[in-house]
């Protein structure tokens, strides 16, 4: 508890009672055909908190609907501009109503009904200008740091990830959990081989049954797809097998008991550590569960993460359109090479310049600073990667959460 600063940060109070640590305007395209118009709109707001997200598909998808709804009503979001072509399947009216019901300023620009590209861009820009003024009126309230929801993801892993950044982040996760925060880890595709370790960490017998099932599902899914969650860069960086990568990745969850299982876009209930099941239910239909790191990051955000810890060995440059991303670099050589992209140098553990405990405390200190408004490297550099594909999930069962 002493780790978290006693002075609360500034929170932006939303009508549903949730609080954000950022106050951003989203521009969201509802089909790839509306992407260019949306990009032109945000290009006018280079140094403003205006971020681009979107869904490229023209076919309907319940998961994409849920993700877009969750992100557009995320506590860090103050207002939303929806950009539709007009003939796509995405239910724009429903999303509009959901955002409106959340009390946020929202506008729908439909390119086909709005005179095409030029008029739509103009109308979009005029709304964003107004929205930037309107979000200044959002009530500012104290944000106590134990109210934070923190997600963790790794990307561009190498063999240093599992011995520096991930265990240090895991220790930081333990400190956050001790302080009463909510934490989420994910990627059941990288827990293949670790089913028994997960079972032992569940707080309830029903949950102990469910956690290994989520990993079994991932193993079956990847066996059918013919590829595990393993990229060529992982091997260049010294990782040989999926189970080796898994063990290195898994330690970033720390040692706290697991209190619940959620799927992308589900909200957490009480504080504590959650596992996110990211593998679609049923037979593989739409391809790989998460085809890239960015979609993983966005699923954590859709489940309410105010900020995301991102550990990397090879060197990811990812940042988020909605929640700040703290980049923790595992490899001292990568850190030297890409210092401007990295918030924490966990490679110091390998060069004997810091202990694992030092780095864990440095990560928590960064979290406190970022909650207080300090910009992460990826925020300063204007990163706002976003990726949302097709998936299908059954709702989570009754024993996944406690209230």
């Amino acid at each position, binding site marked *: 508890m002493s780790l978290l600063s006693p002075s609360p940060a500034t929170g932006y109070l939303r009508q549903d009672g949730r609080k954000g640590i950022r106050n951003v305007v989203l521009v969201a395209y509802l089909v790839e055909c509306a992407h260019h118009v949306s990009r032109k709109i945000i290009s006018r707001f280079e140094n403003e908190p205006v971020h681009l997200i979107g869904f490229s598909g023209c076919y309907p998808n319940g998961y994409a609907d849920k993700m877009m709804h969750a992100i557009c009503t995320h506590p860090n979001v103050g207002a939303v501009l929806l950009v539709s072509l007009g003939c796509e399947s995405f239910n724009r009216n429903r999303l509009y109503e959901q955002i409106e019901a959340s009390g946020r300023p929202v506008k729908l620009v439909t390119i086909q009904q709005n005179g095409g590209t030029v008029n739509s861009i103009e109308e979009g820009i005029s709304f964003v200008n107004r929205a930037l003024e309107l979000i200044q009126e959002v009530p500012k309230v104290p944000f106590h740091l134990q109210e934070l929801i923190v997600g963790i993801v790794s990307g561009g892993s*190498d*063999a*240093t990830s*599992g*011995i520096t950044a991930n265990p240090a982040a895991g220790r930081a996760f333990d400190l956050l959990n001790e302080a009463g925060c909510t934490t989420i880890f994910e990627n059941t595709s990288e827990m*293949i*081989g670790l089913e028994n370790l997960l079972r032992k960490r569940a707080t309830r017998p029903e949950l102990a049954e469910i956690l290994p099932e989520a990993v079994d599902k991932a*193993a079956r899914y*990847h*066996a059918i797809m013919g*590829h*595990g969650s*393993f*990229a*060529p860069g992982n*091997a260049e*960086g*010294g*990782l*040989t*097998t*999926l*189970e*080796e990568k898994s*063990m*290195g990745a898994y*330690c970033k969850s720390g040692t706290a008991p697991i209190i619940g299982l959620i799927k992308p876009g589900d909200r957490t209930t009480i504080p504590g550590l959650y596992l996110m099941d990211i593998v679609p239910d049923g037979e593989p239909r739409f391809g790989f569960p998460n085809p890239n790191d960015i979609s993983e990051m966005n699923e954590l955000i859709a489940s309410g993460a105010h900020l995301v810890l991102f550990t990397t*060995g090879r060197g990811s440059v990812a940042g988020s359109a909605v929640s700040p991303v703290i980049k923790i670099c595992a*490899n*001292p*050589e990568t850190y030297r090479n890409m210092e401007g992209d990295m918030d924490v140098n966990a490679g110091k553990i*390998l*060069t*004997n310049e810091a202990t694992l405990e030092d780095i864990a405390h440095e990560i928590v200190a960064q979290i406190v600073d970022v909650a207080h408004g300090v910009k992460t490297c990826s925020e300063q550099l204007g990163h706002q990667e976003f990726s949302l594909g097709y998936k299908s999930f059954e709702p989570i069962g009754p024993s996944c959460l406690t209230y």
Partner: protein
Amino acid sequence: MQKLFKINPLDNVYVVRQSIAAGEDFILEGETFMATKALGLGHKVAASAILMGQQVIKFGIPIGSATQDIHVGDHIHLHNLKSDYIPTYTLEDEFIKP
């Protein structure tokens, strides 16, 4: 600083913590070895003899099985270790395909 270290006492591999150049000497289990090729940060070196089919242990858990006999001091990677779950994909695979 030791160039290699063991993560878990149960492990039969050491991990490189400071890159070793080709031709450079390193010490393992009191014995001196010469690296026949460069060993990058995080790469694995056998701590004991591992017979073909035996499991390689890192972090205290099996991370796959040896595909050939491995001697103390040998580099352990894709050429002599395979997953017990899902085969590892590398860019070289593209060139091996007919």
